[in-house]
Structure formats: structure tokens, C-alpha cells
């Protein structure tokens, strides 16, 4: 977190701009509303703390004047003159008191703000969390998961740290600027003029530097991206690079990018590095001028000596809040941009509302398509599709890889909405029942297994809320998974790690089958593909799958000829479209795509 790091040079990446600044800002503010009382209190103590800090130097100055005058009188030998420690003591006690309260208030402010900020962050995340449930599959398929993830974590985090630090900083900076300005004026308008004149000077000097440094930082960032990309490619492709003797070329490319990064980085760091000395120089300039002019004013008795001390302190404190507010402008920009991305997500179109006129407890398993039209975009992939599947029948889906077999799953489970037509389950329109009920009747075993970071037991039990230990074991046994699970050191309590790399691909598939068995749905969707699975596990998977299909209506993404031949209906898909349908024999007789596919598969074997 940035508050721990050392102060920045003041240069950062150019901020991203929000499209609708005002609207987003207002909406973000609305998240703070439930906490407005606390927030008001935070602002109040922040202001108090700042005011106390600002009064400090003035009182210190008074103490020093008192000292000086006493000492001066002593020096002149005036009768009864001397330092009045009573007065000084009182002033210092007051000063100490002010400082104690200032620190206390500043602590209270940060303490309270941490709750305000983090609770707001929590609320925002909860809203996103709730939203995720309502978004249609279309949303998730349409963009990279990393993007949604980054909105939910990084963007909300940005908002949080801005609330935590920058919001109060902004308030205190403003109060400080005004307060110091007023205090300086009360001491000496002339000195104030000197202090204030140096301000535009600093903006004048720093502005162009800042702009330049942003440019160099952007170029540094770009080059860093190139370099990281190259390293990533060369390391992951290490084997291929070596196999084809590309080491020298790869090194050459690396050196070129590395050199560019060096040059951009050197410039960026140099430019950002001179901002601080420039600021210091300008600060010192006003320090010197104040010392000189202040000194002259004191000799003329226009101000007291303590005032110089106070004024020097003020002028040193003056530049900081100003650079801070300049920075905050950038921070606010990127925060609003982050908030906008989060709100965009919150405003995404939601799934079509459910209608629950039909009730489907447990289907028998009849599935029918009636004049179904469907397409992801404008182009229809499925047109006027009609099929009838009786309970217990098997439908094989066949076609080259990437032929869009997930489309069918998307429609059956109502992950996507139809363009036209109806899908009937046991004669009931699937849109007339709740999604919950519909999906309860479907089971899914796909090639890309999805398991989560938890125990094997929990992963199997995922299929059925409140499943007993015995049910889990029975399902595992039926899926031929019980044996391998029990050979693991922790058995059913084995925790699958984050990447789920502690069990093999085939074992993962067995677990998902167990999960489906436990859920016991009347209709199954299966993917027979078993790549990177060892042959023995594959045998288990096949056995488990055929047991799973037994007595259920099954839609199988088929890879095995025996499955295809025995299927009651074959749907042939190519490039996302269902191009042929029928039984094995019907399709062979038709002598179309399927027949071609079938024959080409067999030419290899005829040679034996």
C-alpha cells in the first residue's frame, strides 16, 4: 500500500480519463451516502487537526519573540529585563496541547476513515458479486475473464485507497492552503507576496517537466511491456527456440528491447528525479528571500523575530499541500475512470426475467426442439431446427473440433436465449419454468473440468447440496474414482490446490463424473473427449460415462465410433451449424458430410 512507501517524485503515469466524469462521480458519492454522518465527523476532525497544526508555528513564533525580547533586554542591560519563563512556559504548554490534539484528531480521522473506505469497498464488491449472478453467459463468453477480474479487484482497490488517503488529504490540503495563507497574511502581507509569487514560478518550471516525464514514463512502460512479452514467449517456448536453433536471434531481439528500455527508463527516471531538486530550489529561493526581507523588516520593527521563524515554517509547509492537490487531481481522474469501469459492469444487461408458469420437478427426459432459430450475432447458426428425443435416448453430436458444439449446451441449459422457436422438456416450454428447475434436470461432464480449491469431498458434493458422506462415496465408487481417491494421502480430505495440479487430468474428469452421478439428473450432456489422459484412466472414464448415460436422456459430444453408431440420433455440426441429422444408417445413405467424415476415419484402418 502506497502509504508505506517512500514519497514519490511526483511523476506518475498519465491518468486515464473517464468518459462521463460527472455522472460517475455522483454515483460514486451515492455509495458514501449511508456513511455520511461518519464522513462528516471525519471531515470535522480532519479540519480541526489541520487548524491546530496551522496555529502551531504562530504560537511558536510568539514564544521565540518573547525569548528574543527578554534576551535582548537582558543584553541591553535594561532594569528588570530578562526572559519571562512564565509566559514562555504558558505558550509552550499551549503549543504542546495543540500538537497533542492535532495528532489525536489526525489519528481519529484516519481511524474512522479506514472503516468508511473499506465498508464502501465492501459494498461495491457486494454489488458486483450480486451482479455476476444476474449476468447472462453472453457477457462472460464475450470478454476475457481477466477483464472482469480486474474490475472486481484492481479497480475497486483503486477506489478504496483513494477514499482512504486522498479524500481526506484533499480536504486537509485545501484547509492547509487557506489556513496558511491567512496566517501568513496576518504576519506580513509583503512576505506573503514573496511566498505566493514563487508559486506560479514553481508551476511554470514543474509543469513542462511533469509533462515530459509522463511521456518518458509511458514509453518506459511500453518498452517494459515489450520486454516482458519477449521474455515470456522465449521462456515458455524455450523448447521450440532450442529445437530450431533460435537462441542467437532471441538474444539479439532481447538486447535490442532491453537497450530501448534502458534508454527510456533512464530518461524517465532522470526527469522525474529533477522535480524534487527544482521544488527544493524554488523553496529555498523563497526561504532566502524571506530571511532577507524578514530580517530587514525586523530591524525596522515591522514584525517580530518569532514571526520570521513562523513564516519560514509556513512557507515550507505551503508547497507540500499544493503539490499534493496537483497529484490528487490525477488520482481523482484515474479513480473515476476505475469507478466507471466498475459501474459499466454493474450496468450490463441482465438475463431475461424468469417466468414460472410451469413446474418441472423431475423430468422424464423427453426433449424436443420446435422450429428453433439461434445465432450469437446476426448470423443464424441454427435455423428451423426440429428434433424429438424420447426419454432414455442418446443423441450424438459429431463434427470437427471447434464446430460449435457448446452452442447446443448453451441452448439446452438456457445459458443463451433462442432467437425463435421453443425447446420443450417433457412437453413444457423451457422458458416457462425457472432456470433453477430447468438446470436441475441437466447434468454436465465436459472436457475442461472445473474443480475448485477445496477438498475432494466438497468438489464431489458440489453436485448436491447437503449430500451425506455415504452418498459422496457411492458416487465416487460409481465413477470409478473411489480407488484413486483413497490412494491419496488425505483421501477424500485431499485439498485440490489452486491450479488443481495435484491430480491428473483423467482423475479430474472422474471427479466431475462423480459429481454428475451424485446430482442424478434425468438428462445428461457429456463430452467424450479425453485428451492427455492415460489409457487406464481412460477405460475408467468410459465405463463411468456409459453407466452415467444408462437410463438417462444423453447428449454426447461423441469421439468414439461405437457411441456414434449406437446413437438414436446423430447431429452433425460444422462451423457452428447443425448441417445434418439422422441415424448412422440414414446419414450414410444420404452420402453427405457425415458419410465423408466416417469414411475418412476408416481409410487409415483399411490399411491394416
Amino acid at each position: 500500500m502506497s502509504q508505506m512507501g517512500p514519497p514519490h517524485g511526483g511523476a506518475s503515469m498519465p491518468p486515464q480519463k473517464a468518459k462521463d466524469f460527472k455522472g460517475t462521480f455522483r454515483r460514486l458519492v451515492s455509495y458514501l451516502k449511508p456513511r455520511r454522518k461518519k464522513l462528516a465527523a471525519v471531515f470535522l476532525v480532519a479540519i480541526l487537526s489541520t487548524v491546530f497544526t496551522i496555529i502551531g508555528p504562530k504560537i511558536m513564533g510568539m514564544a521565540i519573540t518573547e525569548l528574543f525580547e527578554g534576551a535582548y533586554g537582558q543584553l541591553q542591560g535594561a532594569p528588570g529585563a530578562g526572559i519571562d519563563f512564565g509566559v514562555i512556559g504558558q505558550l509552550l504548554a499551549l503549543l504542546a496541547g495543540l500538537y497533542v490534539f492535532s495528532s489525536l484528531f489526525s489519528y481519529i480521522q484516519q481511524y474512522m476513515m479506514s472503516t468508511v473506505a473499506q465498508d464502501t469497498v465492501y459494498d461495491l464488491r457486494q454489488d458486483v458479486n450480486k451482479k455476476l449472478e444476474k449476468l447472462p453467459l453472453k457477457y462472460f463468453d464475450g470478454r476475457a475473464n481477466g477483464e472482469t477480474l480486474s474490475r472486481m479487484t484492481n479497480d475497486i482497490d483503486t477506489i478504496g485507497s483513494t477514499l482512504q488517503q486522498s479524500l481526506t488529504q484533499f480536504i486537509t490540503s485545501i484547509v492547509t492552503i487557506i489556513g496558511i495563507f491567512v496566517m501568513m497574511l496576518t504576519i506580513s502581507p509583503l512576505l506573503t507576496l514573496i511566498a505566493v509569487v514563487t508559486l506560479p514560478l514553481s508551476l511554470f518550471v514543474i509543469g513542462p517537466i511533469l509533462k515530459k516525464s509522463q511521456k518518458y514514463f509511458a514509453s518506459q512502460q511500453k518498452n517494459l511491456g515489450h520486454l516482458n512479452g519477449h521474455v515470456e514467449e522465449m521462456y515458455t517456448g524455450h523448447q521450440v527456440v532450442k529445437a530450431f536453433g533460435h537462441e542467437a536471434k532471441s538474444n539479439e531481439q532481447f538486447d535490442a528491447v532491453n537497450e530501448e528500455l534502458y534508454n527510456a527508463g533512464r530518461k524517465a527516471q532522470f526527469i522525474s528525479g529533477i522535480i524534487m531538486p527544482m521544488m527544493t530550489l524554488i523553496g529555498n529561493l523563497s526561504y532566502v528571500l524571506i530571511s532577507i526581507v524578514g530580517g530587514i523588516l525586523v530591524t525596522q520593527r515591522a514584525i517580530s523575530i518569532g514571526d520570521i521563524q513562523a513564516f519560514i515554517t509556513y512557507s515550507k509547509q505551503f508547497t507540500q499541500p499544493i503539490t499534493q492537490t496537483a497529484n490528487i487531481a490525477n488520482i481523482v481522474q484515474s479513480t473515476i475512470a476505475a469507478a466507471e469501469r466498475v459501474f459499466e459492469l454493474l450496468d450490463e444487461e441482465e438475463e431475461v426475467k424468469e417466468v414460472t408458469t410451469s413446474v418441472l420437478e423431475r423430468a422424464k427426459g423427453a426433449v424436443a426442439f420446435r422450429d428453433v432459430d439461434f445465432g450469437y450475432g446476426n448470423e443464424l447458426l441454427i435455423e428451423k431446427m426440429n428434433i424429438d428425443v424420447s426419454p432414455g435416448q442418446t443423441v450424438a453430436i459429431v463434427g470437427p473440433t471447434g464446430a460449435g458444439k457448446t452452442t447446443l449446451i448453451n441452448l439446452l441449459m438456457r445459458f443463451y436465449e433462442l432467437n425463435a422457436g421453443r425447446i420443450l422438456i417433457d412437453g413444457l416450454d423451457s422458458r416457462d419454468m425457472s432456470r433453477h428447475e430447468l438446470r436441475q434436470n441437466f447434468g454436465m461432464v465436459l472436457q475442461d473440468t472445473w474443480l475448485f480449491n477445496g477438498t475432494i469431498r466438497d468438489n464431489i458434493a458440489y453436485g448436491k447440496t447437503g449430500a451425506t458422506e455415504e452418498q459422496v462415496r457411492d458416487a465416487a465408487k460409481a465413477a470409478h474414482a473411489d480407488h484413486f481417491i483413497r490412494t491419496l494421502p488425505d483421501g477424500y480430505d485431499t485439498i485440490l490446490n489452486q491450479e488443481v495440479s495435484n491430480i491428473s487430468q483423467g482423475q479430474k474428469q472422474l471427479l466431475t463424473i462423480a459429481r454428475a452421478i451424485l446430482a442424478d439428473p434425468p438428462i445428461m450432456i457429456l463430452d467424450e473427449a479425453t485428451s492427455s489422459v492415460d489409457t487406464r484412466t481412460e477405460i475408467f472414464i468410459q465405463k463411468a460415462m456409459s453407466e452415467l448415460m444408462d437410463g438417462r436422456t444423453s447428449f454426447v459430444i461423441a469421439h468414439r465410433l461405437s457411441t456414434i453408431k449406437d446413437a438414436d440420433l446423430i447431429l452433425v455440426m460444422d462451423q457452428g451449424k447443425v448441417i445434418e441429422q439422422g441415424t448412422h444408417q440414414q446419414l450414410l445413405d444420404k452420402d453427405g458430410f457425415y458419410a465423408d467424415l466416417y469414411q475418412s476415419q476408416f481409410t487409415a484402418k483399411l490399411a491394416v
Partner: protein
Amino acid sequence: MIKVLKNLSPYKWIVWGVVALVFAQSMAELFLPTLMADIIDNGVVKGNIPYIWEIGGWMLLVSAIGAVASVFASFYSSKAAMGLGRDLRQKVFKHVGQFSLQEFDEVGTASLITRTTNDINQIQQVTIMMLRMVISAPIMLVGGIIMAVSKDAKLSLVIIGAMPVLVIAVMLILKYGIPLFQQVQKRLDGLNLVVRENLTGIRVIRAFNRETEEKARLQKANRELADVSIRVNKVMAFMMPTMMLVMNMTVVAVIWFGGIRISNGAMQIGDLMAFIQYVMMIMFALLMASFMFVMIPRAAVSAKRINEVLEMQPAFKDDGTAKADRSRGTLEFENVTFHYPGAEEPALSNISFTAKPGEITALIGGTGSGKTTLVNLVPRFYEASSGTIRVNGVDIREASQQEVRSKIGFVPQKSVLFTGTIAENIRFGKQDASDQEMKQAASTAQATEFIDQIKGGYTAPIEQGGSNLSGGQKQRLSIARALIRKPDLYIFDDSFSALDFKTDAKLRRALKDETKNATVLLVAQRVSTVVDADRIIVLEKGKMVGMGTHKELLESNKVYREIALSQLSEEEIA
């Protein structure tokens, strides 16, 4: 950390220059309050206005010198730190380039990437901070104390008293804060994990109607993160107020005791004012120094990770010089045994076979049976523990790795493509290949059809990792890349898995003509891809449990029969 910083040695004069410049700048900074004290004591008190102007002029000069020094310091520190980063990156990248797969396995590719990129960036960042601020902190600290003592030694006792208070306070806060920060990171990772699981598993979650449970899981992760974030911020809330309080109280004490000193005539008012400013400088220097304690451990972790890589030596040397062209198109394994480092059981034991030009040798067996390990030994990605491998009749240890690999067309299990065009990716196999050769390779690999369909054809860009192509398309390009070399030895490591059976069959037919004078080594999962191989080697747990043709093995080999039965129905086997 120190070892990594030794890489600064080419820049040692620059670094010394930076130290000298920072020293000059700090001195200038420290000198200003003394000059101001002179203005007060000799100018203001005595009413000597010309003196005020004179000293004021000196002050301007001093601060200008300070500014110039720090601009140069910034220039040279950037040069040194970025140079260090550049050199380190180059060193690590070149070093990693020499690694065999063994070292890659040991460290992990992802970890090697972060070590070459993020870790080095971290070091670079910390180096620049150190050169800019951290070296100035001790100088300011010592200088400030010296100046303070020179102004008034007795009053300096106040500072001596305040310093430990500040240091202890900061340490205490950090002691409680840092573990909490780590916990925040951990919980953030936890939230990330749950969100990622929710996004990748969205279909499963919905299919099993588990939205409510998932929502609760997310909420829990969210709550936990919020709670610990609140706690850490509450602890960190102590930081600034405490530091300000200690500093301000020190100043109050200085004024009080300074007043007494002035009253005794032991000190002048200007000196007291200078003293107050020194107190602030000392405290800020301390603050900087405390950041050093936060920064250096972080950088030290990175440094350690980088050193681990640099200290790791490739497991075997590349010092062969022979030409690998004695009898072309042959591959021979003679009693080859291979152990992964630290493994009890050999991954391969006693493998022997000879393959002649025009022959197809297929490897089949379960996961972990050693198929991929075997093919990886041929281009010397790993070194066999014992036994001899001959490519083109030459022991691969007697020729250079470059020479051996130039004879091989390797198609890995995972098709790796690189950023660039399709043409560039195919030419990866032979950089000076003509268009004709490239198109020929693409056509044999059955890639022409989809390349023609893509906008831009051969000049179409491929994104990092080939993410804009399907698995089958990537596989075909990866095959074309090997074909274009016209090598003496082809290695296909389960390279047809993403192809549908029609393309698979066509490709196989086209390959037959292409590999007439070469030998083919093929790893397969499916029996249907090996039925027409000249020689099938059945591997189980690293041992050869059978070798022969499909027919022979089907009759004589139990393991093979079991595999075949699981994949083909009875009629298909016959």
C-alpha cells in the same frame, strides 16, 4: 542483495560520483540554517542591513549549488540504476538461455519469467531510491547532528533523547503493520481466486444451481478482505500522527531548554532557530532511514531469487564438435537410462531400438510411462544418465547441440507459436526458406485451407501464444514449421491431438511422401494413430514392455491389447 549490487561495479565511479553529489547537496541543505542564524544574530539583532544582503546572497549561491548537485545526482543515479537493471536482465536472460529443460522444470517457467522481469525491476527501483534518498538519509542524519552539536552541544541532548522514541514508535507500528499487510495480500489473493473460479466455472455453477452458495463464498472472501484492510489501516493510522507528535514535542522542548540556555547567555537566538530546523532535518532523515528498513527486505527477497537463477549451472555441457551426418535418417537408442534429478526410480530404463530411413517408430503408453521424456532426450533437452543415443549415426554428445538439433524437425506436445506473422512462424524452422518452400510445408501440414481463409493469409498476425488461432490451427502451423526444415529425423510428440479425424487422415497421408528419406518418431495416445507404424514401442513405467507392429503386439502383448481394447471396438481392431 549485496551480490546483486556487485553488478553495479561497472558503474562504481558513477556511484561514487552520485555519493559525492548527494553529499554536496546535503551539505548545502545543512549549511542554510547556519547562514540564516548569522542573518539573525549578526544582521537582524545588530541592525546591519548590508550584512543581511551579503549573507542572503551566499544563501542563494549555496542553494543553487545544492540544486545543481542534485540534478547531476539524478542524472547519474538514473544511469547507474537503469544500467544495473539492463545488465542484470541481460545476464539472467543469457544465463537462462543455457538452461536445459531440467533447470526449467526445477525453477518453473512462470517463476523464471517473474525473476527476469518483476524481480529485476524491483531491484532497479530500490537501487534508484537508495541512490537518491537513502544515501542522503545517513548524511543528513550525521550532518544534522554535527551541526546541531556545533550550535549547542548541551541542547543536542534533547535530540538524543527524542531519537529513540521516534525509532521505537516507528518500529512498533511496522511490527504490527507489516504482518497485517501480508495478510491483506493473502486475502486479496483469496478473493482473486474465488472470483476467478466463479468466472471460469460459470457454466458449471449455473448448471448445478449453485449461485447462492457461490455468492456466499464470494461474500465471505470479500468480508475477510475488508476486515483485515480496516485493521491494517487502523494500525497505520498511528504512523503519521505519532511521528508528527514526537517531532513537534521535540521542538517544544528545544525552545524551552534553548530559552534557558539563552537566558544564561550560552546561546544566541539565531542559533536556536537554526537548531529547530536541524531538529526537523534529523527527524526526516530518520524517517527516510526507517523506509529503508521496509524497502531493503523486500528487495532482498528479489535479489535472492535472482541469485538463485544466476548460480544455477546447466546440468551438462555442450562441447561436442563432430558433424552429425554419418548415416542420414537413422536414430538409435542403445541401453538408454534416464533419471530425473532426485528421483528414486529411473524415468526410462534400458531403452534400445534402431530406426532406419523411411520408418515410423511409434511410442505408446499411459501417462507417466516416459514417452515425452524419451523424445526429449533426442534433441538433448535432457541428458541421458547412461547409454548412447545416435542421431544420423553420431553420438549426440559428440556433436554440438546446435548441430544435432538442426537435423531434427520437432513438433512438441503443446504447439508454441510466437508473435509475428504466419509466414514468420513457419519460417521459424528455416529462416531463409523461399515462399515456395513455405507454401509446400503449409500444404503438407493441411494448413493451406485455413490460412487462405484468414484475412491477410500468410501475413496475418499471430498474437502472443497464438491466442487468435484454434488448437488445431496452431498444431498444423507447428507441424509446418518442422516440415519446412526437411530434417533427417521427425519427432511428433502427440502432435495430432487437436485435429479432427478427417484432417488427421489427410495429414498422415501427405506426411508419408514427405518422410521417405527420414525417420519418424511419434508419440501417440490413440491406437488408431499407430496402427500403420513400422515399429510400436509400448512403454510402461519407463520400461519397454513390447516392441513390434500393431498385429504382432495385439497377439503377443497384454498391455497393448488392453489399450487397444479400451479404444476400439472389436470389429475395428480386426
